């Protein structure tokens, strides 16, 4: 299997791979929008988009236009953004912490987000998407700030300390969230916590995407600029330093940027697990470990992955809907076990 992967890797040059993946992503988004309880064709989707962008004047019934423009399109784009972003963050975290089991939620960001969202509900700042998203975002950043403070000045020298502090803060936030839920005993809050903890794209609308998209774009550009620098971390931080990388500055810049992006994504979808953990490993089979190939490929692959998993989540048991995080966990856990076994064999 490894030999087959290597053979495939050699035959696919980077350009071809990215074009193929990009075509698959466009096809997936187009196809996913047409899937659902209401029967909608590709031409309808196209007519609605053209109409909205004032490229044409289509005569689409209002209900269908509503389904396409208000419900399905933002949701599918949301899945693509969250999937691509989480996969990129996972790949970078795995490199920076030299831990192949690292994922985007390692630094307590997702637990902070759920605490923030629940706090907004409970304090009564509102229950709209904007208020919840804002609360989740603030909570995620606050949790990350606490992680940085707790790990202290010496953390500059020890990334493991940052990781341990992340675990501790995540536990603290989870406990605080449970406490708030029980204290308030508000069914609304309970529903909300379930949503943030298991992850779902059901609430995504254009407003939520407008928050996340600029953060996603900016952080992806930053990561792309550092792709070659990330390669230098392969043999550890000291090795990177002797290769001329200003290790401390680069590490903090990228940790803060990825925490920011994770916060923005969690605010959109809650904590969707396993995408950031598994996708980088799967994509490395195709691209190898060089971040200049890995990062663009993993973003597109993550987007494709989550678009289809979310489509399955909303249609498999229709009219009931699964939280997408439940499905990613169902797919992710076996992949995770395979990864562990492969590591043992590799030793």
């Amino acid at each position, binding site marked *: 299997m490894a030999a087959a992967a290597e053979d495939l890797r050699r035959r696919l040059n980077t350009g071809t791979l990215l074009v193929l993946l990009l075509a698959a992503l466009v096809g997936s988004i187009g196809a996913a929008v047409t899937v659902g309880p209401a029967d909608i064709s590709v031409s309808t989707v196209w007519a609605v988009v053209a109409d909205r962008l004032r490229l044409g004047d289509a005569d689409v019934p209002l209900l269908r236009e509503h389904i396409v423009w208000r419900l399905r399109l933002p949701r599918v784009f949301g899945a693509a953004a969250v999937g691509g972003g989480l996969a990129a963050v996972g790949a970078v975290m795995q*490199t920076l912490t030299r831990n192949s089991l690292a994922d985007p939620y390692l630094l307590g960001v997702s637990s902070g987000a759920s605490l923030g969202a629940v706090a907004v509900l409970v304090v009564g700042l509102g229950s709209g998407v904007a208020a919840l998203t804002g609360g989740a975002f603030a909570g995620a950043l606050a949790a990350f700030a606490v992680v940085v403070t707790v790990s202290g000045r010496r953390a500059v020298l020890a990334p493991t300390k940052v990781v341990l502090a992340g675990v501790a803060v995540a536990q603290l936030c989870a406990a605080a969230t449970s406490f708030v839920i029980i204290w308030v005993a508000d069914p609304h809050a309970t529903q909300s916590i379930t949503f943030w903890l298991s992850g779902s794209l059901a609430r995504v609308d254009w407003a939520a995407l407008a928050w996340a998209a600029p953060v996603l774009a900016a952080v992806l550009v930053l990561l792309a600029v550092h*792709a*070659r620098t990330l390669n*230098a971390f*392969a043999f550890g931080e*000291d*090795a990177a330093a002797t290769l001329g990388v200003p290790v401390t500055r680069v590490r903090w810049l990228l940790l803060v940027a990825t925490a920011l992006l994770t916060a923005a994504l969690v605010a959109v979808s809650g904590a969707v697990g396993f995408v950031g953990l598994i996708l980088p490993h799967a994509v*490395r089979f195709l691209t190898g470990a060089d971040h*200049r190939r890995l990062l663009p490929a993993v973003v597109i692959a993550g987007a494709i992955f989550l678009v289809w998993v979310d489509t399955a989540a909303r249609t498999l048991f229709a009219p009931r809907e699964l939280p997408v995080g439940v499905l990613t966990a169902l797919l992710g856990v076996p992949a995770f076990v395979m990864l562990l076994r492969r590591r043992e064999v590799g030793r």
Partner: protein
Amino acid sequence: MLTVTGVFRSAGARQILDDVTCRVPAGSLVGLLGPNGCGKTTLLRVIARLTTPDAGRVTVGGDDVATLSRATLARRAALLAQHADTDLDLTAIEVVLLGRTPHRRSRWSDSAADRAAADDALARVDLDGYADRRWHTLSGGERQRVQLARALAQQPRLLLLDEPTNHLDIGHQLHLLHLVRRAGITTLAALHDLNLAAMFCDTVVVLAAGRVVAAGAPAEVLTPQLLADVYGVHADVVPHPATGSPTITYHPPAS
């Protein structure tokens, strides 16, 4: 080429480096010797600016390393560690190309010069044809040679070796040091094996408890008296039958 002047470094109450002064002239291979915990690795880390000294000065090519940017220092001095490993699935040539990091012009692509330097470096460690071999399939000796090629691809003026032969069998130990010698780069090498040091080094510096206790040509420094003082061992030193370099044979400890 390399001068170390009055370097101190402590960890807690323990003085790891205690007024260390030594120099490595251009073109020479200098061995850094001494028992475990004598400060060899710390001294190399101070020179590579991975550790900050409490006091003292290190210059490479005439400039204080504290004043150089990381990238400038990485173009002047390359470090080969005891044991380098990675979880990532890299090929040999990808590892060697990491050595081009401080020279890169582009944030994205490898230049033709980078490629040429990497290919040349692999050839200089006798690993032509290994470019596409995966790191995990290489033996310990091959990995160290790939790391040496990575260091050569940095095109440094100074090579720092931290016990690079520690995990290798004797054939690979001799081969690696032969390759270092043949590369002709000014080198400071921490070594455990005194016979290897005597065979390959122009001069040796002996550290004990963080202090320089002897420095000079191997034949002058590696005497039975010094071995008794520094390592606490009884040994005979005789000329090598073929090369004439000092060769040490140890006596079992008196019981």
